[in-house]
């Protein structure tokens, strides 16, 4: 009797494990808080489905998903043509939310809302503007009593999407920066000191008078840090906000390529915040295991229906409607 029952029990156990779907994803750090919230809520709503996402960095995320070690990836940086060509699996990049990078500083005796144009920021990092008293900073900030003190530029020491977005913007507005430093997740900074992570940069800026640096908007907002205004392509001074970021994405969506690989820094439009970017989920078009493909498809559907609403609560900018509509079409091909 027992012997007969045994295979049945085994089968039942197997069926149970087959019903439970464990997916693994790896990639960008910046969207980790909202991704982990989405995946926890999604698995609560769909018992048996567990999507485990870990923030190991965009570059590592791309490497893991293209070598098929994880089921999906995530990145703040678009994949290069070479990476797409070398990938073991065909991927589609799905924009999920947007983020922004803001200039932060500590200046004793000077309040928040200082104004920085792109070329001034570029020249601070190139070592051409070394003093807060510089006439070019003063010109953008009439009436502000700037101290006569050396600037301490702080940058992200580790490779990061934040640095990529920031240097991408500076390369667009300053030809000098493009030729001497260029855009990249980690670059050779001519001056300054490097701190690890947003928290390192923020900690350094907060603790060091006369310092200047850049962090993600969500970080500045979450820590009540004061940050500066940046001049956009239309010549307007814009203070970063989720609205300004979504506006930049909407402005750029008109000529967005089919694979969503687009930079929206220095976007046109009077409302657009200039240092903004998408962050992408990298999903296999056809997963090896069709059950996993179905979970991914269902999750993306859920993300567009429910997830996007939660984005702005957490200071992430949601996708503008035209982009969301196009993403809806794209995910229908995921198997």
């Amino acid at each position: 009797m027992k012997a007969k029952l045994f295979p049945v029990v085994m089968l039942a156990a197997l069926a149970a494990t087959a019903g439970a779907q464990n997916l693994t994803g790896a990639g960008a750090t910046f969207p980790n808080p909202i991704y982990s919230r989405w995946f926890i809520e999604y698995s609560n709503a769909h018992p048996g489905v567990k999507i485990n996402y870990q923030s190991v960095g965009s570059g590592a995320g791309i490497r893991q998903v293209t070598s098929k070690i994880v089921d999906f990836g995530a990145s703040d940086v678009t994949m290069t043509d070479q990476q797409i060509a070398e990938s073991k699996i065909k991927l589609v990049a799905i924009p999920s939310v947007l983020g922004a990078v803001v200039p932060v500083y500590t200046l004793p005796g000077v309040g928040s809302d200082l104004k920085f144009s792109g070329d001034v920021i570029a020249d601070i990092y190139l070592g051409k503007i070394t003093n807060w008293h510089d006439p070019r900073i003063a010109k953008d900030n009439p009436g502000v009593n700037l101290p006569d003190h050396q600037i301490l530029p702080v940058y992200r020491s580790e490779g990061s999407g934040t640095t990529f977005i920031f240097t991408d913007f500076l390369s667009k507005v300053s030809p000098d920066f493009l030729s001497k430093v260029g855009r990249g997740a980690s670059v050779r900074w001519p001056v300054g000191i490097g701190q690890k992570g947003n928290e390192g940069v923020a900690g350094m800026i907060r603790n060091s008078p006369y310092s200047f640096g850049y962090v993600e908007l969500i970080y500045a907002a979450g820590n009540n840090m004061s940050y500066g205004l940046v001049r956009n392509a239309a010549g307007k001074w814009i203070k970063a906000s989720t609205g300004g970021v979504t506006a930049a994405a909407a402005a750029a969506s008109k000529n967005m390529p089919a694979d969503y690989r687009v930079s929206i820094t220095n976007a046109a439009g009077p409302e657009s915040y200039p240092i903004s970017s998408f962050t992408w989920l990298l999903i296999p078009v056809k997963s090896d295991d069709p059950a996993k493909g179905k979970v991914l498809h269902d999750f993306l559907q859920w993300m567009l229906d429910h997830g996007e609403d939660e984005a702005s609560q957490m200071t992430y900018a949601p996708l503008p409607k035209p982009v969301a509509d196009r993403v809806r079409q794209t995910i229908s091909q995921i198997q």
Partner: protein
Amino acid sequence: MRLKFTVYSHGFNKVAWENAERVPMNKPGSIQLPQTVLSERTQAAEPVVEAIKPPSIVRSFLQSKSSGKVADGTFWGLMIVCALSIFLIVLLILSVLVVNSKLSIHTFGWKFFTSSSWDPNSGDFGALPFIWGTVVSSLLAVCMAVPLALCVSIFLLEICPLWLRGPIAFLTELLAAIPSVIYGLWAIFILVPIMRDNVGPVLQKYLGWTGFFGGSNFGVGMLTASVILAIMIFPVISSISRDVMKAVPIHQREAALALGATRWEMIRMSVLRNARIGIVGSVILGLGRALGETMAVTMVIGNHPDISKSLFAPATTLASVIANEFSEATGDLYLSALIEIGLALFLVTIVVNGIARLLVWAVTRGNTARAA
């Protein structure tokens, strides 16, 4: 009385001490074969000298009589497998590093270790500033940590009241358990402002003329990194050296005291002298930890790949550049250059350990009565 004291106080350093060392050897057990035992003892006292010791007659006789030949062989085999596995692990890691950094090795050759350019955008990579940062920060840290650790071990073993010994030892071991991220965060919020506002200006004022403390002091840089490293390797050095000192037989201490030695003389001559090989071992372990430490150093060293004479200037290390850039590196050459940095760290560790070993050899050439 006075005459006696004169003799001891003067002759203490050499003659009386040499005799005192031999005291434990005149034990009944070894009386039958004094010559052999003596020769073995003096040889065994300097294992690092790598002298091939003649097998003790006592021991080989006893071993040939032992009942478990097969069991002994198996045990020896097991132990040698364990030892070999260390060798194999290192070989495996080395091969992984070499295979994955082939591209960079082919592209840059030896220039990789002498070039100081590191520019991911133009694909130009050199490891020199990182090697410099690693070596200097680790050596500085060891220089700071070793005297302190030895003083604390001496305090705990020889001076400290018994009730205080447990808590302090516990506290130092607790330090070994703190994740290095926490050290880094603590350093950013507490240590960096202290280095910037208190320690830095003092050093600049009194030692500025040396040139090691010039330039702007932002609180982050080589010096702060060395201090945090010193704090981190302190528990390793102090716990192990304390245990080694503790193992020095009590009669060695008593012999020194009986000869009229002061406490310091007793510590210097019986404790430190007998424990020095073990102490050097603990220092090498600490140095190893300092060379490979990543997180905390990354958070306070400033991460700027420049070679500067000033200890206030930001620098960077081999381990921190890997930790900083590995997860975001794109492009095959970039990635393989980062892995070659790992290889460079291997080489630095080998060179530094080699030098340390030479030092040990120089220090321990003299005779030590170890574990008599």
